[in-house]
Structures are given as C-alpha cells and as structure tokens.
C-alpha cells in the first residue's frame, strides 16, 4: 500500500480552445484525491511530453475535441516509446468516435473516454491501471 498520490497531467493539444471538458475532468480527478496538473491550451505534443517528464506524472490525459485525436496520439505514443517514459498511462477524452477507439488502443492508449463519460468511470479506470502496474 503506497501513500504516494497518483500524479496526472491533463493536456490540451492542438489549436482547439474548448477546455471545459479538460478543466471539469481535472477538477473531478483532484476531488477524487489525485494530484492534477493542467497544461493550459494550444500545446504541442513536444510541450506535453516535456511537461510530463518534468512533472514526473503517472498518467497523461489528452482532451481533444477537434477530431485530430489519431495523429496527435500517434505522435505522443511514438515519443513516449523512444524514451524511458513508456510506462506512462495514456488516456484520451473528448469528441472521439466509437470507430476510432480500436485504433487508439492499438497504438497503446489505455483508456478512451468520449464526451459524456462519468467521473466515476474515469477515476475507477485510473485506480485499476495503477494497481495493475
């Protein structure tokens, strides 16, 4: 049993500025006892990667509503793979069509939470993933 709080980075990649979902999930996760860092808007994958490294997070949650989730996830997963950060749990939330979920999972995204997912679902998923590690 560890007392160290789970650290989560909530990130907003790309040009889209709709951050209601990202902020709401960040607040929900903080309420659930996680340590949450929110990147703010208009982040490049490189910036998100650097923040994840500096903040030594366990989980990276990307919030994407623009439709560009596949290329963004591919870029981040490739970057993580080539470093010692490949143990990070990567989650994606936002406007994600059902049909894209298998492709996201195939490249190593562990959890996908389309708009409307419940806080409990996300929290439980992170706890299970961390327990399995």
């Amino acid at each position, binding site marked *: 049993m560890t007392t160290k709080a789970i650290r989560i980075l909530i990130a907003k990649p*790309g*040009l*889209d*500025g*709709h*951050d*209601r979902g990202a*902020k*709401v999930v*960040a*607040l*929900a996760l*903080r309420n659930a006892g996680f340590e*949450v860092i*929110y*990147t*703010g*808007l*208009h982040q*490049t994958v490189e910036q998100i990667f650097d923040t994840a490294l500096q903040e030594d997070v366990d989980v990276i949650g990307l919030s994407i509503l*623009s*439709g*560009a989730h596949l*290329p963004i996830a591919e870029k981040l997963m490739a970057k993580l793979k080539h470093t010692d950060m490949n143990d990070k749990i990567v989650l994606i939330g936002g*406007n*994600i*069509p*059902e*049909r894209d979920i298998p492709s996201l999972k195939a490249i190593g995204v562990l959890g996908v939470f*389309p*708009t*409307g997912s*419940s*806080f*409990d679902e996300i929290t439980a998923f992170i706890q299970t993933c961390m327990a399995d590690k």
Partner: protein
Amino acid sequence: MSSKIRDVVLESGIQVKPVYNPEDVDPKNEIGQPGEFPFTRGIHPYMYRQRPFTMRQYAGFGAPHETNQRFKFLIENGQNALNVAFDLPTQMGLDSSDPLAEGEVGRVGMAVDTLADMEVAFTGIPLDQISVSLTINAVAAPIMAMYFVVAEKQGIPLAEVRGTAQNDILKEYIGRGAWIFPVEPAVRLIGDTIEFCASHAPKYYPVSVCGYHIRESGANPVQEIAYAYAIAKEYIKRGLGRGLGVDDFAGQISFNLDIFGNFFEQIAKFRAARRLWARIIRDEFGAKNPNTMMMKMIAGGGGGGLTIEQPENNIVRGAYYALISALSGTQTMALCSYDEAYTIPTEKAALISLRTMQMLIEEMGVGDTVDPLAGSYYVESLTNEIEARIVTEMKRVEDEWGGIVKAVSEGIVQGEVAHQAFAYEKGIQDGSIPKVGVNRYRMEEEKRDVALHTYNPDQAEDAIRRTAEVIARRDSSAVKAALEKVRAAAGSDQNLMPSLMEAVRAYATLGEITGVMKDVFGKFPEPVNL
C-alpha cells in the same frame, strides 16, 4: 392526501415560489413602453409586428467557393443574414501552410490566408444588403480589413457596409480559447476597430460581446450577463479613450447571448439584461441618444442544452429555445441544429431550424403583439431579481477582482466558470439536474457514433496552392512595405486598421500580418487557475 411541494431553485440561485402575486412585483422597477427607456419590453415600439427577428444560421465550409455556394443556398431560402465560421488556423492567425495548422485546414470552417479567399467567399453577395457576421476574434482586425477591402472592390462605400464582427477577445480567454496576444494589446486592437468603424464604417457592428461562450463554458445565466457587461463596459471605455463620445459608437456594440436552461429564467434574463444595459449606458456613461441605450442582441439556441441521446428531442428543445427568444424580444435568432451534439449540422437539420423560427412568426402568431409576457407577476418578479443579481456579480468583478482585464489576465473568471461547470456536470451525473433522455427516461437506443468535421487533406493542399499562386503574383516589395507599416502602427498608439487594410490589399497573408503583431505584442501567458 397531501404530497410535498417541490423546492425549486433556478441556476441563478433564485428560489421559485409556487404562486406569484401582485405584491411580488416591486412597483419601483418600471418596465416602461416597448421602444422606450429602459427598453425592458424590447428596443422597438412594434417589434415583430413591424419586422420579424432576423434569422441567422452558422455556415462555413473548408473552401471559400463552398462557403459561397452555401451562402447562396441560404439566401435563396429566405435567410437574410449570414454567419461565417473560420477554421482554427485562421482563428489563430496561421496560414494554411504553417506546420501548426497541419490537420486543421478547412476542418471547422473556412480557411482564409489572403484577401483572395475572402473575394471568392463573397462573390455575388452584396455587402451593403446582406448582413454578414464574422466569427473571428484574435485576428478580427485583419479579417475585418479584408472584409472592408472586398466591399471596396464591390464598389460599396465603407459608409454603407453592413455586418458584424464577433471581435470579443476578452470572452476568448474565458471560453472558446482562440486567443493569441496578451490581454492588453488584444483589447487595444478592439479599441482600434471601434474607433475605425465609428469614423469610417458607421453601419458596421465592430464588436459582438459574447455571453454565449461564457455560458457554454459553465457560467450560470446571471454570470453570463454580468461578465459580458463587464467586458462590454471595458470596450466602451477604450472607445471613450480614443476621444469618441459614447453616443458615437456604443450603440454599434451588440451582444451574442445564449439560450438554454429554465424557460422563464431565460426570458427574464433577457428582459433584465435589456433594462440594466439601458441604465448602465445612460447613468454610468451619460449617453443621451436612446439608440445607444438599446441592448441589441443575437440570441442563440445553445448547443449546451442539446443531447446526443435521443437526438430528435433536440428538435423540440430547439423550438422551445426559439420560443424563449421570441418571447424575450430578440432581434436576431440563431438556432442550433438538432444533430449538432454529434455531427456537423446537415443541410436538413439547418433547414428544420430555419423553419422552426418561421413557424413561430408566420403560423403561431408569437410576434403579433409586443412583449406578451409583460405584467406577469412571475416574469416581472424574476426580471427584477435577476437584474439585481447581475448588478451584484458585476460589483464582484469590479471590487473583488480588480476589474475584468485583471480578472481575465489572472485567470480568476476562468477559474470561477470552471468550478461552475464542474458543479453542473456533477449535477447531471448524479441526476440532481434533470436532463430528459440522459438522467431521466433513458432508453436503450442504437448507439449513435459522433461524426466529426472530416479532414480532407486535398483541401489543405488546395489552400496552400491557392496562396502560393497569390504570393507568386503579388508585388512583394509592396507587401514588405505594408507589413513594416503594420509593425510601426502596432508599436505606437496609431490605429492599426489603415495599415492592415493596406497590407491585405497588397495580399499580405494573415500569417504574415499576425506574425508581425506577435513580434510586437508577444503571446498570452495563460494562467492556469483551477
């Protein structure tokens, strides 16, 4: 057998009584006559009896020629005003060829790199007759410059050009997030556009202050109006700072407000907002012209109220939103499409929205008499209560947060709205806020997959090629000289609009122009305040 009377508390925190009576309406708070101060009942004496509300639908497709076709379709179908959506790179001042634009060109709206794109989009659209609304903020000044130059090329004098630019940067920092520059220079740009329009394009509405996005980001109806008014007051102060009189320009600042939530709370919100604005403009700014005191608004049936579950229910929600809007005395209505919770509105869905508004006026007789709810004990009581609460919230912005510019720069409003959004979402998830089809009367239904703006890489290639051709044809020394003038104006207290018009006339790209402004202004350091 008696059952318990339900407690009802509105989003604004108002406790609703089961019955309202004459004594619930404070007689000191007069509503006046329609078309007269304080305009509670509407800004025109005969409202829709004389002219139905303007019906405006959002349109904008990746390529300028497609946007042009959709505009022509809408005009043929009886629409008299157009809203233009721009893609994200354009909203962020990036050219289609910019590496940061990759994957986004033409995705959520029209891609504009140069004046040539705007010329194509508005071919055959007379800009002195059709009122075009440009949904653009951080780079509103250069896009307005393009619009004015297109009008000039159509042979329309600037003094006759109609239209609206959203051009409300302060709300971008609160919701929607399409900001580039730090708050101070961004607000200065708005001052430049206000000053320019007041002197050269008096029929143009240079700013549309958006409570809409503030509400969609999580604010309650009282906060929506309070923050929008704090923002609008700031822009007015900037105009006054240019030596303009309040009556010279403040009447051309309009509002874009949201509709969803409790039916009567929404109606009261609009009536209260109109009366309060008239009081602010007359009593705080000393306006003399009644036109300046009129709060002009476009009310939009908010996407925030729609559900992906049982989406046909959204047609009914849309009709209620339109009814709220009509009973509130709005001048312009933009109704959401029932399918927009999961896809880009189809032509059919957009047409149903348009027909919904037409039915209200032409079949239902909703516009036959002005402000039909006036005198209702409940509506008048709510109107008074909401107005009082907006005043209190505005005082909080001023006294506790040090004004809207400081509150936005430091992320205070953003934090406030985010917490409100969180509370709302929790309420939806635990069922304490009822939502039919979501946490009430949920049904097993075919899973509806969200469809997104598809990305067509050809469109990006086309845009890049078009701009390359424009660049090859233009006089590069003229572009260079014009951009240096933009730089000089940005670094001084000169109005930027004349140099921006010169730059777009020379076919400088939006990315080049924004780049010069970024050199001078820098970038907004986003405060993350959760």
